[in-house]
């Protein structure tokens, strides 16, 4: 079975802080990590391989330093890693990203494609379904359990707001996974050694066979017009006095607002 896992390198948003004076992000010392959901995608790929045989290939589209993320995936045990890197890919929105990833996936060949539910920087959860559309294959989003898999079909649990759906789908298929699916393994020592030496394939837009104006910024229908700091509440009151007084004051204020 040919298993492709899409991973993205993201800033660890828990560490991203805002500078209250300039209203910009303080990025120094913020580490880059593999998008947490994609760790579960890698684990799902490895488990499928253990069950069904085949190979697991991780791919990422990003700047040259995204190679670190791929090496980390290799240390967990994936067979092969491909970095889609090209100045022309810069500024891609989800449509251009998905078109690029799908181009590479088609070139590599696949039976199943696994994505994380969403990336924690953009948080869109759009790339998985869009890649499936470009590949012309069905997808199942929010997979929390893989119940059964044969050569032709797969039975999955899809998370919904009030529970889950049991869904049967044919292969080839794309799935996006949630963290309930599994617990990602830690890299092994052997894996770490292999990761250091492993060769990482690199693709540019030419390798994928997509014209330059259909990737990156130029291939992106959406654009960032501007960014700004989230609004702060204008007025805030820190209540004073003894705990009793504070509580009484709070109750008075809440009564005024008809909250109670």
């Amino acid at each position, binding site marked *: 079975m040919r298993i492709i896992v899409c991973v993205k390198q993201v800033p660890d*948003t*828990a560490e*991203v*802080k*805002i500078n209250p004076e300039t209203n*910009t992000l303080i990025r120094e010392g913020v580490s880059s990590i593999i998008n947490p959901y994609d760790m579960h995608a890698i684990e799902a790929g490895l488990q499928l391989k253990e069950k069904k045989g085949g190979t697991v290939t991780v791919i990422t589209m990003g*700047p040259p330093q995204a190679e670190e993320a791929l090496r980390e995936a290799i240390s967990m045990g994936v067979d092969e890693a491909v970095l889609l890197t090209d*100045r022309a890919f*810069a*500024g891609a929105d989800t*449509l251009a990203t998905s078109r690029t990833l799908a181009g590479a996936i088609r070139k590599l060949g696949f039976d199943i494609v696994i994505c994380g539910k969403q990336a*924690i*920087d*953009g*948080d869109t*959860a*759009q790339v998985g*379904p*869009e890649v499936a*559309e*470009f590949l012309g294959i*069905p*997808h*199942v*989003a*929010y997979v929390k359990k893989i119940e059964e898999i044969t050569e032709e079909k797969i039975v999955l649990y899809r*998370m*919904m707001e*009030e*529970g*889950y*759906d*049991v*869904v049967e*789908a044919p292969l080839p298929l794309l799935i996006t996974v949630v963290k309930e699916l599994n617990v990602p393994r830690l890299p092994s020592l052997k894996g770490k050694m292999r990761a250091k030496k492993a060769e990482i394939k690199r693709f540019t837009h030419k390798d994928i066979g997509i014209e330059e104006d259909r990737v990156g910024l130029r291939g*992106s*229908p*959406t*654009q*960032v*017009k*501007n*960014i*700004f700091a*989230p609004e702060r*509440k204008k007025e*805030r*009151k*820190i*209540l004073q006095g003894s*705990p009793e007084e*504070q*509580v*009484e004051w*709070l*109750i008075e204020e*809440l009564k005024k*607002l008809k*909250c*109670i």
Partner: protein
Amino acid sequence: MRIVVDKQLCTGCESCIESCPYDAIVMEDDKAFINEYCQLCRNCLSVCPEGAIKEIEDIYDREPPDVGEFRGVWVFAEQREGRLADVSLELLGVGRRLAETRSTDLTAVLFGATDREAQELIKWGADRVLHAEDPLFEYFNDDPYVHLLSRLIQEQKPEIVLAGATAIGRSFFPRVAARLRTGLTADCTGLEIDPETGNLLQIRPAFGGNIMATIVCPRHRPQMATVRPRVMKKGRYDETRKGEILKVPTDGLSSRTRVIQTVKEETGVSVNLQEVDVIVSGGRGVGGPEGFKMLQELASLLGGAVGASRAAVDEGWIPYSHQVGQTGKTVCPKLYIACGISGAVQHLVGMQSSDTIVAINKNPDAPIFNVADFGIIGDLKEIVPLLIKKLKELKGQ
């Protein structure tokens, strides 16, 4: 457009590097270089003392947009088991406003359910409902939703199409956008019309809520966006409103996936954080499951429910279904009381649009106080029992 550094003018002073929230400016051969992280936010344009950072126009930017023939605002109305999703009614509220600004009609698109629900959509603000009935819509499968919505959009060319950022919306809507080769902006918290261009301004949080971004889709149609539940307010319900219901043919639909079973999960206590008026939420400061019992008592007195930060959920003090924030629920109650929660951005994005926020925290520097209307600096183990006591007195218990 693109942002570039004029190497002739750049002195290598590095003053632009800090200005970039995306870390897209790096030094190469002692000159600034803008790499592929650039999101075109333009933050750097004004900081260069030499004026070396410039915005340049691509030929592509000047192509005349073929967007004029697209008209009308559409809302995808979601139903499960015949029940309309609240978020769809909220979208009709925004959709109404957008349609009026663009002097056009508001259309709701309904797959499944009955005439009764279609009528409801009109009372909630739609001028017209495109209603498709087919056994395939009994359960949610992506294929028929994608095929039919794409087909309708291609035939009728709406200018704006909105859907809820629910499990269903987030799964099939991106595929529609990809099929139509247009843009889609996820989880918008604001939708406005740009008075100059008539384009839809799609405002959404980025970087886990650290920063807000305005996204546009200037050259492609339709402009598509999703909105999370409880972010927008519902429009006005008008019992007497009249509108048109058009039946849509469903020939040629099929699905490659099949739902074998739908399972409702029992979470023990039923929590519907997105529907209550009051939420009493606890974080790591609550100290353990016992503390949450106290919060439950307070919540019950106020007729509300209990929420939690991720830290409290990770500690196992309360189930995940109570989690509020980026990876939990987005809530917007009338009153949100945060007890022992520091106020990390990932928590704030899930609750900061609540009408009134009260924070109880013993650390005066906790960021939660930045979003709070009322703050109590103190030990929740003292404050909460007092609150409970006073509220009981008020109620004469």
